[in-house]
């Protein structure tokens, strides 16, 4: 064997053993979505796993575009045991190759299963999402709080305990921190909250309402909707609050900004010539450009995929709201499932979103290519969960 290759393999092995989760960042190959909503799931079979281990793995893989079948029909065979700790392996029977074969320890069983799901998905050169977190708004009228949970809704923890209203949480990419709207000061303000230390501060506390914070991919700038100048307009400033710049100047709608992954554009919901539309504007200021979403009425709540390829958004039909995706340059949009306020996972294929159920919201995950979706676990005692923000 070539010495350099061998050296590289050993270094990778050391990294895997020594640092566990840090291996995630080494793999950044993304398989782009080619056909939203009509792609066939990848068939897998599972044997030996039982109870919570089996159901956890089924959920993890289902929302990433896999479907379970018998061993004869499956493209990949997963087997293992969860007697105490998890041991699991995945093989490709056609190539007679082993993709993953590992024992897991040192964490609760659910997390061991999530780690295996990520190992398996990454062996297929995809980005695993089973170790990621989501933030969202949990509401029990008349109050709401910000929560953080595993991506499947388990292990939810309250971030706020203000007995007031909150809205629109947004993670700072790569950091244990977030922005959200809080009414704690009898005013609609944007707070910055460092989850590691618990410290928080009023980030935007201008006259009028301070709404819909969106952090740039590098974490250095924040876009938001302010009414301090008498209209609801789009603004951007630095993460320390300085250099506030007004990007739109119109008495019309502007809402729900999001960033392009290169940080050059801010996309938002707008109204142009009496028609609701998605627009983008250079983050440094400039002319607005429409993003066409042919056939999809009243688009709002855009979110730009981390790979830059797609913009997910909510369209309003007579029958209700639908989660849609459109190529980021605009074009033919595809309507996928009933729901609102999509947020992309780091894999650029799974979306978290809110689904109405009897006047309340339930959080659900959608695999865009296969259109497979499943509700996440709910927090008992919290009647409505909405506005997910996926940590990425």
């Amino acid at each position, binding site marked *: 064997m070539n010495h350099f290759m061998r050296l590289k393999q050993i270094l990778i092995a050391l990294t895997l053993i020594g640092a566990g989760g840090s291996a995630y960042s080494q793999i950044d190959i993304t398989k782009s979505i080619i056909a939203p909503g009509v792609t066939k799931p990848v068939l897998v079979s599972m044997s030996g796993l039982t109870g919570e281990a089996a159901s956890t793995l089924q959920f993890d893989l289902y929302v990433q575009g896999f479907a379970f079948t018998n061993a004869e029909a499956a493209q990949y065979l997963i087997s293992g045991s969860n007697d105490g700790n998890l041991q699991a392996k995945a093989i490709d029977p056609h190539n007679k190759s082993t993709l993953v074969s590992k024992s*897991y320890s040192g964490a609760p069983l659910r997390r061991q299963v999530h780690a295996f799901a990520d190992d398996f998905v990454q062996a297929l050169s995809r980005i695993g999402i089973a170790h990621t977190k989501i933030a969202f708004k949990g509401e029990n009228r008349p109050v709401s709080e910000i929560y953080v949970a595993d991506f499947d809704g388990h292990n939810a923890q309250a971030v706020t305990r203000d007995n007031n209203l909150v809205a629109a949480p947004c993670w700072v990419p790569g950091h244990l921190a977030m922005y959200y709207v809080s009414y704690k000061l009898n005013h609609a303000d944007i707070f910055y909250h460092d989850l590691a230390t618990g410290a928080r501060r009023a980030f935007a506390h201008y006259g*009028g309402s301070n709404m819909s914070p969106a952090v740039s991919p590098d974490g250095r700038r924040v876009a938001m909707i302010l009414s301090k100048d008498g209209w609801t307009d789009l603004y951007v400033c630095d993460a320390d609050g300085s250099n506030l710049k007004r990007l739109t100047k119109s008495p019309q709608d502007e809402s729900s900004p999001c960033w392009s992954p290169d940080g050059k554009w801010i996309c938002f919901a707008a109204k142009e010539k009496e028609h609701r539309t998605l627009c983008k504007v250079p983050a440094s200021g400039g002319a607005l450009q429409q993003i066409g979403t042919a056939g999809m009425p009243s688009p709002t709540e855009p979110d730009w995929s981390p790979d830059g390829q797609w913009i997910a958004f909510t369209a309003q039909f007579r029958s209700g709201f639908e989660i849609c995706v459109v190529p980021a340059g605009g074009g033919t949009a595809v309507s996928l499932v009933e729901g609102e306020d999509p947020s992309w996972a780091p894999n650029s294929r799974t979306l978290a979103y809110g689904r109405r159920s009897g006047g309340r919201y339930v959080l659900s995950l959608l695999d865009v290519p296969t259109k497979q979706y499943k509700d996440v676990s709910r927090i008992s005692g919290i009647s409505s969960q909405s506005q997910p923000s996926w940590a990425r």
Partner: protein
Amino acid sequence: MKERTMKVNKFTNLLVIGLVLCMAASGCKKKPTPLTMLPGSKTGQVGEPGAGSGMETNAPITTETGPGSTGTGATGAEGYPQGPGHPGWPENAEILKADTVYFDFDSSVLKTVEKPKVAAVADYLKANSANAVKVEGNCDERGTEEYNRSLGERRALAVREELIRLGIDPMRVDTMSYGKDRPVDPGHDESAWRKNRRDDFVVLTPPNK
């Protein structure tokens, strides 16, 4: 060239020995498969909010400094050059309760039929010159959440503009949007929605010195 290859070879062998020792130390030797230790909950990496003491907080909020607190000399004629409203002023939502203004679906246009209520609020403010008012915009449940938060603010701003037109000092009129988070009627039909598309008036009185 040969010497260099040998050096690399030596280095590689050292690494292999190191790896074996490392695996032995972590107990992998007995297992047929590599052991994957999961990072603990104290690692503080992204998506590990269990770390630190930051959760479930109601930490005090600093509002003395920071953007907006001191005003920014905003240019809009109907803007908030004075900064964020009237922090600390006691609120009374009863005094002007009868003057709640209602809106059409998905509209922030102040209807002619609603204007007398705004005029009544202007009269109240003229008669009580020390007081201020907060206009709270609300929506029915049909729009998406952040769209409605923006719409509610435009409803509040529309009434603020009318108050200013009637001669009220812009400094005395705050606005705030609750979006669809504060319905007065929790129902899911037009009779409920009609009541929820509204601006409420909250009287602000100067704090006791």
